[in-house]
């Protein structure tokens, strides 16, 4: 029990007739970077807010760091760091002032404030920026400041809400290095994201779709255990090919990746390569078809789109 940072059973939240989170069971171990992957509006944020104690669950239970939520929300606040999607520190205060403000808010020992701010500034490469107003920082710098502020009180659990959606790839890599360092030091990190490359870095991943937990595991296990066969089609006219493939009943989804197509087929489809080649040939298309290991996006598509076929059709 104590091995898990977060445990939920049947966690549910309804807003009127709409069920935003529907019976989610989670068991997230400590010291891990754990990802919530899902499209916008899937219920990631609602879940996180229930775990923070900002929203009351309509049903089910959640235990966070051994505290029952939302009953112990006030106690938990001190052990919790939260980094919002948009920069939410004060743009008209300097980096140092922002950090000191957060230190006061979290009641860090008075004598420790200076030292903690210094250490945080060093760790997150903010030393040269200490006297600069936060509003004038670049996207990556803001990111580091936000992380520094969220971890100043050494939280046991850190929530990151789509942390790197506004940051360039290099900054994103640096940022993730910081996250792994924190995790190595024992912090449990919960990241919500809709970016595949971000999700792929997580130790564990929960794919959430329409309020439900549809897949869970390590990225590797998810990719290997995908409930579909993935076929890669290389063809001079991928658009026409995708139209030709879409009518087939055993094909669940077709995604175009430049000149290639990823087709997800029902797992029990026999001789898939032959089948697809035939279909394309009938449509008058030259194509090379081969079975390929699933990537995370395939897993995501397979687990978020399969159950509602009419929806997939509309989205396609």
């Amino acid at each position, binding site marked *: 029990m104590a091995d898990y940072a977060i445990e939920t059973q049947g966690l549910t939240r309804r807003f009127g007739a709409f069920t935003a989170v529907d019976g989610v069971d989670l068991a997230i171990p400590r010291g891990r970077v754990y990802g919530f992957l899902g499209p916008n509006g899937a219920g990631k944020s609602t879940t996180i*807010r229930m775990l*923070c104690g*900002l929203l009351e669950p309509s049903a089910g239970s959640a235990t966070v760091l051994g505290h029952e939520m939302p009953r112990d929300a*006030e106690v938990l*606040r*001190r052990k*919790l760091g*939260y980094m*919002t999607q*948009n*920069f*939410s*520190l*004060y*743009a*008209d*205060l300097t980096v140092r*002032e922002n950090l000191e*403000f*957060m230190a*006061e*808010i*979290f*009641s860090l020992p008075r004598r420790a404030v200076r030292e903690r701010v210094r250490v945080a500034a060093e760790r997150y490469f903010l030393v040269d920026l200490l006297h600069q107003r936060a509003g004038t920082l670049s996207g990556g710098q803001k990111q580091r400041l936000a992380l520094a502020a969220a971890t100043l009180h050494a939280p046991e659990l850190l*929530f990151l809400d789509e942390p790197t959606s506004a940051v360039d790839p290099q900054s994103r890599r640096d940022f993730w290095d910081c996250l792994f360092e924190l995790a190595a030091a024992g912090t449990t990190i919960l990241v919500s994201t809709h970016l595949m490359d971000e999700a792929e870095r997580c130790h564990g991943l929960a794919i959430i779709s329409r309020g439900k937990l549809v897949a869970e595991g390590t990225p590797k296990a998810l990719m290997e255990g995908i409930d579909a066969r993935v076929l890669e089609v290389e063809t001079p006219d991928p658009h026409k090919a995708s139209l030709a493939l879409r009518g087939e009943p055993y094909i669940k989804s077709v995604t175009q990746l430049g000149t290639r197509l990823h087709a997800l087929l029902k797992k029990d489809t026999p001789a898939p390569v032959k089948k697809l080649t035939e279909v394309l040939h009938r449509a008058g298309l030259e194509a090379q078809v081969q079975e390929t290991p699933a990537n995370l996006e395939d897993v995501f598509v397979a687990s978020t789109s399969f159950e509602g076929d009419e929806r997939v059709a509309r989205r396609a």
Partner: protein
Amino acid sequence: MKGWPAVLDSLRRIRAIAGKEVRQLLRDKLTFGMIVGVPLLQVILFGYAINTDVRHLRAGVADLAQTQLSRDLVAEAEASQVVDVVAAAPSAQGLEELLKDGKISVGIYIPPDFDRRAATGSQPAAQLMIDGGDPTLFGVAQGLAQMPLVTRDVPQASKAPLFELRNYYNPERRSAVDIVPALIGVILTLTMVLFTAVAIVRERERGNLELLITTPVSNFELMVGKIWPYILIGLIQVSIVLFLGWLLFSVPVAGSLLDLYLAALLFIAASLGLGLLISTFAKTQFQAMQLTIFTFLPSILLSGFMFPFDGMPKVAQWIGQLLPLTHFVRLVRGVLLRGADLGGMWVDVWPLLVFFALAMTLAVLKFHKRLD
């Protein structure tokens, strides 16, 4: 939670929020400018411009009598400083033309048989034509019509007036003496309500609140922390207005300054409460500003700042009684002009207290540290 240390932590958070707020204020040049600029501008504008004792109205004269007495009448009217004769017209129609064109706002028509009319007193001797579009002018004209003709030849004019009017507290009938004290209230209403409303809404609009809600900061700490720098600002503004009023318009301080500042504190508290309440309704800074103006206008119009309270219709008076400014205007005029003490004006003190308590309670109840 756990007694003493928890209280200390809470105080520390309040101080951190207040300190941050002050820093932001000092850096926000526009807001900071408003703190000093608004009182400065308003005292000067209102003090000089609002003049209910109207003087130097442009007048036109059509003197068809051309007698000694008629010339005396015109001279008398001019001597009162109420009118300046700027034009002459040959006839009543000529005066009407001048009025219509806006060249004059008062026309004095003296008929050819003026002397006879004045002597018998059976019918009005002369006629005042005024631009009725401005209600204050009408009052002025009425005053002018009562003006006795102090002329030896006319016995009626030497009659003693029925009442002797004596003007207490503002013997020279200077508007500034009435206006400036009340202006303290008007300025505080504007700035206090606006600043607090905007300060909280800004935090929400810029996303800061999204971060704060996950921290140990409570609703109460956030509100108190944000409010109290503005109390200081309010007191600074009171001092600015008082000083300017004294410097420019010789507004007296008849009562005790302590009473005045106490009254101001009460009123600041009530205004801040209102500002907080507004902040719980408004989603954007713009909405907060609109709501502030929405409460500001009735305050100015119905509080007795602009128009005499007793002269207003009953319904307007009831609404006026609900506004903190109404009571503060009475308190501040009482203390500054009449030298009254607060204890004696309890009827206007408790409404402010009640208003503050109600607004704060509603605001804290309605304010959610939530995102939606």
